[in-house]
């Protein structure tokens, strides 16, 4: 056999390999998005099949947002990440060098195709009369919230409480710290993720109030026995913007860059936005937002940028090792 024939045979094998690959995406997400992406994956798989003829298998992995980001940095081959906050995706760019630093500019709305906020879930009749953040810091109240070191939702919870206290105490940081410290003294269990905290509160019957993603609270109402829980909307909360990104290094290596990008872009489509609204996330599109407006209460929402100067700063000040949260919580 001549060398040219051998090389041609190798090329043929390589080509056959390329055509034989099955398209599989791994979406690494945070805790409460299971139901959202189960719905969405079905829709996108159908859309992709009709568009390209390719069969697509989408796998989901869920956990605390920070822990999920760590797993991806450590090698979990995520084609896309749909995490609870931009800081966790930033970590993939900064620590893992898995995607460019300006990843947030690649998709509309700073790569946050839907939003949510933080509310309280209490037991039927609100036996402790909990109405606002003040009530959660009172002695004897049992508060359920996950660990901000591992959970993105927990960080939103913490920052919403911080934002409230900042306003209440006119920026007096010492008093704010005291308030937050009192609140976390009331937390008997720190789960690693938001879904774990929902389990603690709803299924294990622990605590008087669950600080929760709005969508998770709605889901708990939907899934639990009729009338077991109520949602309490605090006077002030935070605009939570879960962000999405395709992981360039992984997607390029796996040859899934095109479909990974399309997967996230389709979140902004009419169908994607409708699925978000149906799963209790606040859609970005005016059409879907109008359709689901009635289910979402009007709340005074602060933003991460205006109160904390963005995620990078908030992360560094509050949640980095030795940060404010550590100072507060380790005292307990």
């Amino acid at each position, binding site marked *: *056999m*001549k060398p040219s024939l*051998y090389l041609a*045979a*190798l090329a043929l*094998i390589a080509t*056959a*390999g390329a055509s*034989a*690959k*099955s398209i599989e995406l791994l979406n690494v997400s945070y805790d409460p998005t299971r139901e959202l992406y189960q719905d969405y994956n079905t829709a996108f798989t159908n859309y992709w099949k009709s568009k390209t003829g390719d069969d697509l298998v989408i796998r989901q992995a869920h956990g605390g947002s920070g822990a999920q980001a760590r797993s991806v940095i450590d090698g979990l081959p995520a084609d896309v990440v749909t995490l609870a906050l931009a800081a966790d995706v930033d970590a993939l760019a900064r620590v893992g060098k898995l995607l460019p630093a300006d990843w947030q500019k690649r998709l509309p709305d700073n790569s946050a195709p839907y939003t949510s906020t933080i509310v309280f879930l209490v037991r039927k009749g609100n036996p402790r009369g909990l109405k606002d953040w003040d009530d959660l810091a009172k002695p004897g109240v*049992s508060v359920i919230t996950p660990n901000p070191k591992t959970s993105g939702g927990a960080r939103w919870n913490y920052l919403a409480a911080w934002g409230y206290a900042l306003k209440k105490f006119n920026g007096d940081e010492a008093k704010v710290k005291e308030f937050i410290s009192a609140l976390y003294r009331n937390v*008997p*269990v720190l*789960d*690693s993720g938001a879904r*774990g905290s929902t389990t*603690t509160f709803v299924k*294990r*019957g*622990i*605590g008087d109030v669950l600080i929760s993603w709005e969508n998770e609270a709605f889901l708990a109402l939907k899934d639990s026995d009729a009338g077991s829980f109520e949602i309490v909307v605090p006077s002030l909360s935070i605009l939570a913007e879960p962000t999405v990104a395709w992981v360039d290094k992984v997607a390029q290596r796996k040859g899934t860059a095109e479909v990974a990008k399309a997967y996230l872009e389709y979140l902004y489509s009419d169908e994607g936005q409708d699925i978000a609204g149906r799963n209790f996330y606040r859609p970005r599109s005016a059409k879907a937002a109008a359709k689901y407006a009635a289910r979402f209460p009007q709340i005074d929402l602060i933003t991460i940028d205006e109160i904390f100067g963005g995620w990078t700063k908030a992360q560094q000040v509050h949640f980095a090792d030795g940060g404010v949260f550590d100072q507060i919580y380790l005292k307990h």
Partner: protein
Amino acid sequence: MRNLPAILRAFFLSAVLSTNFFPVLRADANDDIQALRAQIDQLDQKLRILERKQEIKDEEAAAAAKSAPKIALTDKGFTFASGDNANSVKIRGLVQLDSRFFFNDGGGIANNAFVLRRARLISEGTFAKLYSFQLVTDFAGTGTPSILDANLGISLSPALQLKFGKFKSPVGLEWLQSDSWTFFNERSIATDLVPNRDLGVLASGTVLGGALNYSAGVLNGVPDATTSNNADFKNDKNVVGRVFAAPFRGSAGSPLQGLSIGVSGDLGREKTASGRTAGYKTDGQQTFFSYASAVVADGQSWHVSPQAEYRDGPFGLIGEYVLSTVNVRPSATGAKAQLQNKAWQLAAGYVLTGEDSSYNGVTPRTNFDPAAGTWGAFEIAARYADLKIDDAAFPLFASAATNADEATSLGLGLNWYLSKVALVKLDYYQTKFGFNRAAPAVSATQILRQDEKALITRFQLSF
């Protein structure tokens, strides 16, 4: 009447309790009850919290266990694997100690022996799920330790896996089966005609829902029954291929479900400075044919081997035919001739203890354990095989006086699977030799003067 005061007392007490006669006393009782309820609620919450914390700890421990490296020692060897199983290294071994005794061969041939047939250390591994390696070294034999297999693999999908390096050429059927699990101690004489281990690149895979297995590749090319010496500097290479189908694999209940049929072959050009083969051997591993030392290969060579396998519960059957074609010269300048040697075999096994017969050996339901009164598994086997040398080989390419031109072999075997790891084999072989018409009445080679009658036992450890 004697009970009247007691009845009156009870009546009086109930009247007192049912009125506000002692309101302070009742309020205190209510407070106590409320306090007790609150205490119970608090204790209940504390208990729930403790339980939940333990639950979280357990979940974290389970998650940590999933990601922790794993070490396993099983009947398949030692395995070291990463928590996600993406990376693993496996160490295996194979040791075979044989005894060979030959009967009725005149007694003048020093061929009875205990033989360390194989002593192999096998390491295999996978990295990032896709990339694999295999390294098989053999410490048996009289020479220095040898590397039998050394290859790297890329597993793109079940339908396409690539292998680079040194590995078994995919020509033949019994040849491809593991040394540990053939029906007999030694492969049949049909395997004399297929190339052994070679160097090159091979694509293989399973398609059509597992019903068709294929291999195709480019190899250096080695003569019959020969293993590459790890380097072969020449311009001509061999193409090899094999398809093996199980067309009734999905037909549950069909008597043909266990039938597989296939064909394998290779094609290339050989130009060598030395003899075509080191020799064809009997079941007793004695050489009954070899080309003259001056013979060289020069020209096209090819093999074709139709083959079939059937398994049904404890019954197993394999059959193959091999046609080996080579162009040779009696010396570097002699006239070229094309020779075709042919061989076939049919071998069957039956597991007396009822376990399934399998390409990967028998897994006994119980291990041999005298204390427990269990005996492992027993299998009987029978084989018939024939190898015919091309008449044109004599006398120019091989001496009719010192070589047989045909060997016909009958084998009977008993295999005792002490466990999946330990095996004892007892085989009896009888090989009848045929000779070219130019051969003398009595062969010049002593072992060919009578049928070969060999009893070969084996103690094997394979993990």
